[in-house]
């Protein structure tokens, strides 16, 4: 009896040791590249520091106080919110419509599916450059269209009032295919029998979609919304390349603002504060959204 006990104890130790060996590389990597940097960012947020000299000056909450009263940061935050709300309102309905169309058509519409998916194949950098030129005042697509119709050149990206909307349009252009495929996967997870039973009971295709399929898709829609909401708070590449945050602060986002402070003007102390602030805001936001949307079961 005693022997057996010590055997299992030894076995347990063996298991723990083996697990530790297997987990070690990942744990080392995550500690150095994720855990330590997060802590370091919070520590740096209390210093005045240009990032190059070894000299750091402790300034307490001065950076945080500056952040709370920094009009540009809050402008960037509200731009993030605008991006979030508008991309949700545009991406979700169009994504569902396209998926419904593809689901109804089956293999016949493979051509549409392939072409509609194309924007997803481009990196955010490439999309940013493409539209920087496609929306250019001289020789851009919209300008040329407007000229063709007898109008004048249109400067979407150079105008403070339209720049953010143009950027949001491009974000939607790139991400709608993602949600389309996501919903399509949701549709195809509905068993064939459900459709057949509905048709036998005399439902039309549109009745099947609105009364049976969409209610069954609610969990998919919910997680797509979470993905879109949280993703919107982190945008960087595309916007940085298309507009660099300008004109003025009209397309500045939290991430571009953080980048500029840290790596363009080398104010790394304050840059850390912005990054830490972003981290806090995103974490709170993610927790609230998950609770609200998941809570409904």
């Amino acid at each position, binding site marked *: 009896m005693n022997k057996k006990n010590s055997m299992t104890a030894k076995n347990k130790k063996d298991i723990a040791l083996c697990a530790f060996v297997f987990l070690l590389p990942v744990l080392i990597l995550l500690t150095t590249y994720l855990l330590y940097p997060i802590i370091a960012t919070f520590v740096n947020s209390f210093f005045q520091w240009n990032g190059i000299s070894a000299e750091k000056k402790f300034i307490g909450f001065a950076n945080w106080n500056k952040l709370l009263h920094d009009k540009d940061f809050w402008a960037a935050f509200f731009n993030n919110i605008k991006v979030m709300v508008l991309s949700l309102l545009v991406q979700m309905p169009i994504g569902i419509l396209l998926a419904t169309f593809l689901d109804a058509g089956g293999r016949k519409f493979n051509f549409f599916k392939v072409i509609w998916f194309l924007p997803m194949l481009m990196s955010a950098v490439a999309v940013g450059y493409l539209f920087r030129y496609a929306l250019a005042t001289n020789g851009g697509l919209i300008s040329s269209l407007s000229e063709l119709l007898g109008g004048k050149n249109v400067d979407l990206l150079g105008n403070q009032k339209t720049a953010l909307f143009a950027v949001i349009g491009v974000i939607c252009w790139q991400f709608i295919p993602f949600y389309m495929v996501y919903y399509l996967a949701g549709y195809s997870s509905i068993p064939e029998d459900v459709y057949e039973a509905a048709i036998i009971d005399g439902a039309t295709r549109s009745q099947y979609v609105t009364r049976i399929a969409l209610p069954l898709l609610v969990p998919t829609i919910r997680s797509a919304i979470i993905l879109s909401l949280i993703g919107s708070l982190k945008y960087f590449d595309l916007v940085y390349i298309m507009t660099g945050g300008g004109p003025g602060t009209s397309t500045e986002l939290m991430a571009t603002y953080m980048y500029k402070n840290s790596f363009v003007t080398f104010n790394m102390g304050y840059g*850390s504060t912005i990054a830490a602030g972003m981290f806090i805001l995103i974490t709170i936001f993610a927790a609230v959204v998950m609770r609200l949307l998941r809570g409904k079961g």
Partner: protein
Amino acid sequence: MKQEINYENEQRKRTVAWAVAMALAIIWFLITFIPFLFMVLTGFKQKLETILYGAFHLPETLYAQNYVDVITDKNFWVYFRNSVVVLVISLVILLFISACAAYPLSRFRFKLRDPIYLLIVAAMSVPIHVTMIPVFQMTIGMGLYDTIWALVPTSVAFATPISVFILVGFMDGIPKELEEAADIDGCGRYARFFRVILPLSAPGLSTLAIYNGVNIWNEFIFAFTLTQSNENRTLPLALWNYQGQYAVNTPMIMACLSLSVLPMIILFIIMQEKLIKGMMAGAVKG
């Protein structure tokens, strides 16, 4: 009689509905496709053509010089080689260590299992920007700044949490009996991982390879902050440098863009469903 009219009405309604759906589908097709067409065709234009004649004017001649210039540019191939090196090395390391970590999390019971798993899941939602300044400092400290080796650990580290998460789910689905059989045959825990679990995880690993491969290939922000000189930069930064060099030469930049998108499009043509599935792998995050 009445029945028949109803039927005809229904039929007409359905035709109209399809016509509307088709029209919308074609509009969306145009919205998606025209920017691509603009990109490829503009690449065939001469320097000032777009500005002089607008975007809808077809190229005067099929001026392929831009494409030739990009392909014969030595720098382009340096960027390309760097991207391939970073991609291959990061991917091999990433898949191996993620599988290693997923194995005990899926199969063993030990005290710290739940806290470690939770930590990894939580790490998935960390915005990478919060790590940038310390990672920048660390990279300089390690003497890796402005080398392509700076990009390997970042590519691996930020892709690890989601990869481990997906692989744990995948390994949970591998029947325990297979491992028990190997156990009886005298396979130890380490051998079971290499001989049973790792080979059986191949489908999960290949999906992850596509998902992470696309992300690493397109990675911009760390490549942008951790490297500086042309010979150590990756393909996404080729665009950045070309833009600095040829800012007013729209056709040249569009040619470079088209060529940078080409590998993905070829991959997409070869393995459509698999690529879509792979690119959607990260969607489980929600």
